[in-house]
Every structure is written in C-alpha cells, then in structure tokens.
C-alpha cells in the first residue's frame, strides 16, 4: 500500500522538573480525595483543576464538563529526590563512566575526541554522490559503520574500568548497584541527592557520546524532584451500588506517595535523627518505584487491602492485555456475531439460520420513509421481537427506546429519521469462516431467524468456507449502510458465488448421498408411480404433474431443469471405450439434456457436484438465482429419492470373489518376481542406460514402475470383481464419496507405501529398513510393497512400514499447511492494493501499472469454460439458435 506520509523520526526524552511544574495545574498536597459530602477536596488528588469525572461538575481549568474536559496534570513536590526506576540502568552506567568530581568521561582527551569523531556523522566525509557503483559503496560504509560503533562501545566500556580521572586526577570509587534502586560507592551509601549532583556535572557534549540528547533528557532529570500527577480522567474512581467510592489503583499509590512525602517533610523540619529520615526516604523511594512499576524484582509488589497486587503505570501498558496490544493494535467489530454452525438441508443455500437471541441483539439501521413509517412505528411500540432498539433523529441524536418513552418517540417519528431495528428474515448479512483465504470465505446470506443457539448452514454451501459441522464456529456481520448492503447483495450473495472465479467451475452442489440419489434417480428407466412422484416433487413445491400414471426418474429430474436447457457432457462413469457411442453409451456415461429434458445418461458428480456442468450451464444461461434454485431443489429431491429407493453399504459389500482375490495375489507375486528379475539384471549390468541417471536410479525407476503397474491392475480387477451395481463402486465412480484406490486398499492389496515420495529403502538401520531384512535388499517387500489388504490384515512388518508412511503423510500435511499458509499471506500483502481499473489495466494504489491487461487476456475466469473462451461451443450455440 502507498503510504501518503512517513514518520521522519521519533524522539524520546525525560520530563524536565521545570516542565512538569509548568504543565501542572495544581500542586497536590493533601492525600485525601473527597470530603464527607463527596465533593473533591481542593489540593487533593481529585482536585477539580485536574479535570472532572462526576456529572454535574465543571473543570476548574477548562470549565468543561466530564465529556469535554480532557483532564489536566498536577504535580507533587518531593521533599527528597528519588530515582526513577526506569532509568536505573542508565544512571548506573553514567556514574561509572564519569568522574565523581568533575563529571567528565573517564577517558583521556584524545580518546574522547575519537569517540566524538566516530559517533557524530557531521564530521564524517560526505558520502560520494549516488551515481555509479552505488551498491558497492553502501555496503562498505555500513560495514565500516558497524566496526566503528563497536569501537565506540568498547571505549565506553573501558571508561568504566579507569580508577583515576585523567582530567582532574580524582581517585574514583567503586560504584555498586543493589537492585532495584540503591547505590553504593566503596560500600558507602550514595543518596539520590548525591547522585543527582553528580549527574548534573556531566557536560552536554559528552552526554551525546552516551546517546543522550541533553536538550530533551538531562540525566539528572532521571532523579525525580517533582512527580507529575496524571489527570483524574486517567484514574477515574468508580461509585459502587452501595454508594461507596472506590478509587483507582493509581490514586491509591499517589495517596501513599503524598502521605510519606508529608511525613518525611514533617520529620525533617522537626529535626528528626538521620536514621529515621533515611528510613522514610527509602519508603518514599519504594512508593514512587511501585507507582511506576509494581513488578520490580527485589521489592515486594504493593498490595491492595484485599491482597491483590496493584496495577500501576507499567502494568497498564505491558503485555497482551496492556494498552498497546489490547487497545492500540487490537481490532474489534461491532454488529457481528459468532457461534457454532450446524447443518440444515431444509434451508436454502443462500440462507443462514440465525438464532433468535442473536437476531434480537443485532440491529439494522433503516431510514424512515412515508412508505415504511407505519410498520416502523409499530416496531417502536412493540415490546417483543421485531423491535426498534434506537431511534436517530435527523440532527443525529440517538435515543434508546424504553418501556417509558416508546409512545413519545413513536409519535415523534417522521420521514428522515433512522431507526435501528432488530434483524429480520431476509436481511442481508456477511457470513465468514476463518481462515479467510478466499473471496468465498466471506459470502452474503439472507437471514432466517430460527430457534436454537447455532447458525444453520445448508451443507451445500459449506464447501467454499471449507466448513464442517464437528464444532466449527462462524462469524456473521450485519452491513450498516445502504451502500454496504447493496455491495453484499450484488457481489457477495451465495448464488453469485456458485461458480468459482478461480477456474470457472461450480464450487457448490450436491454432496454425498445427494449425488448418489441423483444418480439412482436418473439411471436406467426407474419408474415411479404417480403418488410417489407427487410426494417427491411436492417436497420442492412442484405441484402440477403431467396427466399420466407412471413417471421415469429422468422425467422427474427433468422437472427441475429450465425448459430451454441444453447440456452434453461425458460423465465420471465413462469407461473410455475405443469408440464412443455417445447417447447410446451402455454405461449411461454420456449425459445429454435437450430442451430441458434429460434424454440420455445417468447424472452423476460431474454434473451436479464438481465441476458441475449442469449447474454451470444453468448459471450462465439463466442466472445465479436459477442455479441456486436448482441446487436447492435437487439436493432436497435427491435426499428424498434416496430414502425412497433405499441405498446401503456394509462390511460385506466390498467382499471380492475368491478368484479375483487369487488373481490380485498373482499380480502382486508376479510384480515381486519382476522386481527380483530387475535387480538381477542390474547386478549383471543389463539394464538400459538413461542419460542423467545413475544405474541405481534407473533400477529404482523401473521397480517403481513395475509396482505401480501392479497396483493399477489390482484396481481394475477389484472393480471387475465388485461389479457395477456394488454400492461402494457406485459411490466411488460417480464421485459421491471415496475412490477406486480406497476400495483396492480395503479389499485387494495396499500397494507401495512411501516416505518423502520414495520407496522405503535407504532408511532406518544401515543398509536395511528393519532388522528382519537382509542388508542391501531393495526388492519389493523391504522397499515397502504391501500385498495384504486392510480387510485381510497386515503382518507386523507390513503394519510397521505402513505406519511409517502414514506418519510421514501426517507430518507432511502439517508442515505444508503452515508453510503454504505463510506463503499465501506474503503474496496477499504484496498484491493487496491492486485492482483492475476501468481501462482493463491492473494497477496498484499509486496508479502504477502492473499488467496492461488483466491476466494478459482480460478475461474473467468466472465467465469462461475451463479458463478459456470456447469458440467452438459458441459457434455451435449460435448455429442451433439456442
């Protein structure tokens, strides 16, 4: 994204005591907050000059009310200075590097000069002009810079070890820091006031060497003499139901500080012994330290009366729930809801079932017009579900509708007002499931308020979200402006996303038994009597049947299709015969729909699931809504059809006849022998040479080819053995669930297991996978070729090898999803701000051209057939005049 403005620099400094006094509106001297009447005490911590939080009062500084007064600082004059806990490290470092008497850096004059030269770039020779050899130069300077910085650090380090000042000859003491805030010099206590004096003596230009800008951060300011008191708005007190006041943690801490400060002052003026004064001084230091950070190691955290540790300044900012991560970089969304999703095939795919509770909470702004005013008035007056929750007047005043003011507000209602009413059936909302890596991860739905506590989603619409119903949760957003609503309706609604923009195929359609139901309905010449046909079609609202007694499945299916629909395609059941007999295909794999009538073929997955030829055709010819209606009708019909016909599978369903099992075994044995032969050939050097491959690689390739050939034969044998009418085979071939390989692995043989795409050789023990094999044996079985099936059971060795392969694929899946996820994210951010302009160019937000024509051809894949414009198809359509 283009950044219109850039931050040049940020400067951090320490508040100067003078500045603290200047920005202060009040010197706080009283450790109390409110008097007995609950009125803020003057000079107390809730002084009205520091802002107001109680309604009805006015700020004495800006005369603003609680809503308008931003709050103002006050200050506390500390009787004795204390160290600021945040700067202890810097103070320690400065004390050790500078002279205790003259305040200069403990380095000889010439070394100080070197430091200045290294650190202040003004004195460096100007960089050569940027024309030629740019890269080279920059590299060199950055290396040099690094070296020099290191040198500077070394010098500063050295200064800490020097024991005699090279400038004034003063003998230096050994400074010790006892954490958190106590300093000693040669085992003698250094009080903050002494430390402050020493820091004051450090000259400005030598401070710069430590990276301190004396203009904004003199080091003595790190020893506090004045403490700023934050505005009351920063530490608001809350009134409990009992009328009792409860102060903020910061206020509590400030009370402690003022109290001790006062006691210290009293003791000093009374001439108390040094020991007592020092004790009080340390106590003041403790309170000021915990005021900044209540989690300093070495001192116990200050506790509330209840024993809870106080949350002071540092705690407010730090961590996940601190100001930065929680409020400043945190993102929250209003008008949204989230709950578990459950499937409901009886709602339409373009709908979403919204729980009553959620519908009552979310609101939609509606502008009052003379056409809807009566309805809205009724909703204002209502005290149950379709209710208006707020009314916004044309001046922008927002009113909550309550039991008491509803009549009055209803009377006031006029065109131009905006009301916020509860969610109703038919409202458009955006529905989303994370991870949102798709435009189809956020789609528009129409609300359907339902009982229960879950969002209801038609399972045909679950696929683009990649949702299932094992506990998935989804988010729902209510668009709040007319423009947003329009955008959702035009671009995001489910029907408009049935065809994927990625490849132009249908991404929603029948699933599982819906596909099977469709197939069973349309296969062969299944007959239904009038009563049954009536019942089935009645479910989807088709009431007018032709006057006849029996209906074929194809006729019933045809009733879902638009009248002028023409589709022809080769289905998944195709056997790839040498000559295609088209409509007369014996397997009904050639599907033909003419003028809205299914004339040939049994409709299967390719037609109604993916790529969804029939759905696609309806979408392009009759529009998104027609396609959505088709899916809605088809899925419901198919479900009832399959219940009517009956369809089942069982463990025995996949049993293969004895002779097929024998044949599969024969194939496996033969493959094993072939592999042995290949190895023999290799040993004799009879294998062909392949350019770019070692003889071992050639052997491996040939072995793999041999074994996968065996698996292929096993697949076809299994299919032959089970026959076409087998339930498992039907589900696998029509694309409802499973694939032929699953069937073979269950019934015939497992075949090759692999690790990282290779056979299981070269792994495990030296020269062999498991101790049971001979060293260097790379024949079929040691390589992981499994002859058993899941049903027969694996022998221990096979089970082990198979488990390795299984583990590998799970690890692989984990690694690949996270890696591709991050990859996707980077690509996303790189292309985030590009869009296709009106002239067909792809540009970024600065208007710079990325592509002169989108995708080189300017074609939207959504409107293509398989990513291309099929000219032959168009010509055919034009010729036939459809």
């Amino acid at each position: 994204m283009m950044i219109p403005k850039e931050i040049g620099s940020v400067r951090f400094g320490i508040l100067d005591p003078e500045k603290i006094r200047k920005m202060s509106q009040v010197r706080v001297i009283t450790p109390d907050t409110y008097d007995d009447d609950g009125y803020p005490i003057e000079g107390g911590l809730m002084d009205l000059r520091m802002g107001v939080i109680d309604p009805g009062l006015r700020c004495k500084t800006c005369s603003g009310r609680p809503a308008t007064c931003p709050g103002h600082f006050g200050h506390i004059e500390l009787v004795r200075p204390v160290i600021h806990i945040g700067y202890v490290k810097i103070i320690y470092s400065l004390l050790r590097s500078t002279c205790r008497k003259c305040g200069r850096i403990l380095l000889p004059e010439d070394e100080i000069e070197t430091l200045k030269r290294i650190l202040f770039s003004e004195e460096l020779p100007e960089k050569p002009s940027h024309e030629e050899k740019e890269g080279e130069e920059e590299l060199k300077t950055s290396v040099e810079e690094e070296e020099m910085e290191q040198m500077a650090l070394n010098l500063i380090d050295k200064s800490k070890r020097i024991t005699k000042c090279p400038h004034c000859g003063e003998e230096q003491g050994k400074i010790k820091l006892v954490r958190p805030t106590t300093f000693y010099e040669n085992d003698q206590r250094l009080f903050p006031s002494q430390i402050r004096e020493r820091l004051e003596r450090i000259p400005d230009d030598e401070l710069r060497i430590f990276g301190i800008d004396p203009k904004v951060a003199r080091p003595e300011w790190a020893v506090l003499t004045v403490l700023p008191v934050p505005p009351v708005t920063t530490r608001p007190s809350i009134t409990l139901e009992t009328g009792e006041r409860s102060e903020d943690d910061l206020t509590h801490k400030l009370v402690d500080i003022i109290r001790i400060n006062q006691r210290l002052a009293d003791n000093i003026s009374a001439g108390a012994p040094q020991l007592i004064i020092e004790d009080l001084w340390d106590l003041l230091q403790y309170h000021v330290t915990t005021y900044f950070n209540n989690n300093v190691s070495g001192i116990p955290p200050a506790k509330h009366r209840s024993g809870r540790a106080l949350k002071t300044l540092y705690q407010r900012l730090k961590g996940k729930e601190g100001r930065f991560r929680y409020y400043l970089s945190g993102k929250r969304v209003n008008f949204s809801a989230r709950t578990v999703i459950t499937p409901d095939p009886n709602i339409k795919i373009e709908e979403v079932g919204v729980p009553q509770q959620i519908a009552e909470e979310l609101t939609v702004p509606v502008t009052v017009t003379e056409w809807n005013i009566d309805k809205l008035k009724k909703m204002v007056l209502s005290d149950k579900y379709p209710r208006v929750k707020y009314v916004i007047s044309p001046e922008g005043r927002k009113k909550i509708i309550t039991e008491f003011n509803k009549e009055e507000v209803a009377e006031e209602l006029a065109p131009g007002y905006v009301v916020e009413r509860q969610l109703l059936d038919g409202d458009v909302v955006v529905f989303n499931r994370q991870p949102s890596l798709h435009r189809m991860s956020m789609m528009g739905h129409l609300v359907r308020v339902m009982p229960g506590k879950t969002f209801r989603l038609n399972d045909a619409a679950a696929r683009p979200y990649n949702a299932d119903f094992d506990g998935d949760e989804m988010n729902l957003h209510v668009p709040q402006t007319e423009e947003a609503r329009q955008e959702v309706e035009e671009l995001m609604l489910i029907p408009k996303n049935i065809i994927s923009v990625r490849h132009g195929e249908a991404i929603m359609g029948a699933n599982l038994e819906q596909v099977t139901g469709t197939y069973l309905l349309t296969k062969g010449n299944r007959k239904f009597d009038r009563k049954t046909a009536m019942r089935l079609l009645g479910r989807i609202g088709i009431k007018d049947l032709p006057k006849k007694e029996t209906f074929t499945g194809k006729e019933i299916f045809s009733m879902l299709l638009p009248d002028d629909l023409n589709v022809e395609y080769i289905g998944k059941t195709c056997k790839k015969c040498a000559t295609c007999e088209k409509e007369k295909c014996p397997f009904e794999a050639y599907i033909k729909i003419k003028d809205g009538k299914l004339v040939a073929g049994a409709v299967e997955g390719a037609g109604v699931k993916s790529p969804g030829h029939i759905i696609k055709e309806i979408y392009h010819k009759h529009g998104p809504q027609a396609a959505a209606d088709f899916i809605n009708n088809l899925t419901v019909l198919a479900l009832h059809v399959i219940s009517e016909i009956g369809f089942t599978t069982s463990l025995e369903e996949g049993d293969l006849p004895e002779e097929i099992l024998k044949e599969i075994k024969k194939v496996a044995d033969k493959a094993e022998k072939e592999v042995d032969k290949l190895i023999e050939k290799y040993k004799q050097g009879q294998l062909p040479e392949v350019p770019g491959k070692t003889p071992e690689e050639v052997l491996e390739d040939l072995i793999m080819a041999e074994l996968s050939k065996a698996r292929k034969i096993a697949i076809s044998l299994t299919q032959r053995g089970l026959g076409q009418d087998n339930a498992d085979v039907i589900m696998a071939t029509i694309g409802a669930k499973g694939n032929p390989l699953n069937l073979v692995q269950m019934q015939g043989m497992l075949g090759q297991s692999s690790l990282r795409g290779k056979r299981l050789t070269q792994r495990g023990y030296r020269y062999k996978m498991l101790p049971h094999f001979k060293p260097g044996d790379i024949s079929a079985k040691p390589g992981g070729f499994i002859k058993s099936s899941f049903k027969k059971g694996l022998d221990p060795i096979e089970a082990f090898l198979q488990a390795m392969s299984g583990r590998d694929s799970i690890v692989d899946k984990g690694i690949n999803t996270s890696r591709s996820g991050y990859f996707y994210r980077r690509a996303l951010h790189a292309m985030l701000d590009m869009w296709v302009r009106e002239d067909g160019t792809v540009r970024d937000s600065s208007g710079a051209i990325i592509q002169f024509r989108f995708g080189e051809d300017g074609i939207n894949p959504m409107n293509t057939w398989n990513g291309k414009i099929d000219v032959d198809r168009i010509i055919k359509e034009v010729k036939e005049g459809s």
Partner: protein
Amino acid sequence: MKKSIILEHQLVPKHEIMTDEEVRALLKEYGVTLEQLPKIFSDDPVVKAIGAKKGQVLRITRNSPTAGEYYYYRVVV
C-alpha cells in the same frame, strides 16, 4: 557491440526500443506518466544486449496461451 546470444533464446521474448512518438502515444493511451510504467533495470541482460538507455521504453511482445500476442511495456531505469 557484440551481438548477444541471449536474444536468440526461445524463452526471451522480443524486446524493442520504442520511439518517442510511440512512447507519447502509449502514455496518452493509458493516461499515465513514465514513472507509472513497469520498470526494467538498465543492467538487465536484454537491455544491455539491445543497447537501450535509461528513460527509454521497451515494448515486449510475449506469447500468451490465451491471448495470442501480448504487449508489455517497461521503462528502463
């Protein structure tokens, strides 16, 4: 200059230096400034091979499986 063999390679599309006239027409057609065109470094092998100078615009004729020929314009920087 020695004729570079990289231009002969089948994967290197045709690069031509456009005349000022053509560049003006191009900028006008897309309503952009020179800076908004895609860039190509002056030390790009092809740029060196055809001897293009900074500020000149190259017309690259690419073959596209779906669009036949596709023109791409890059300014030498």
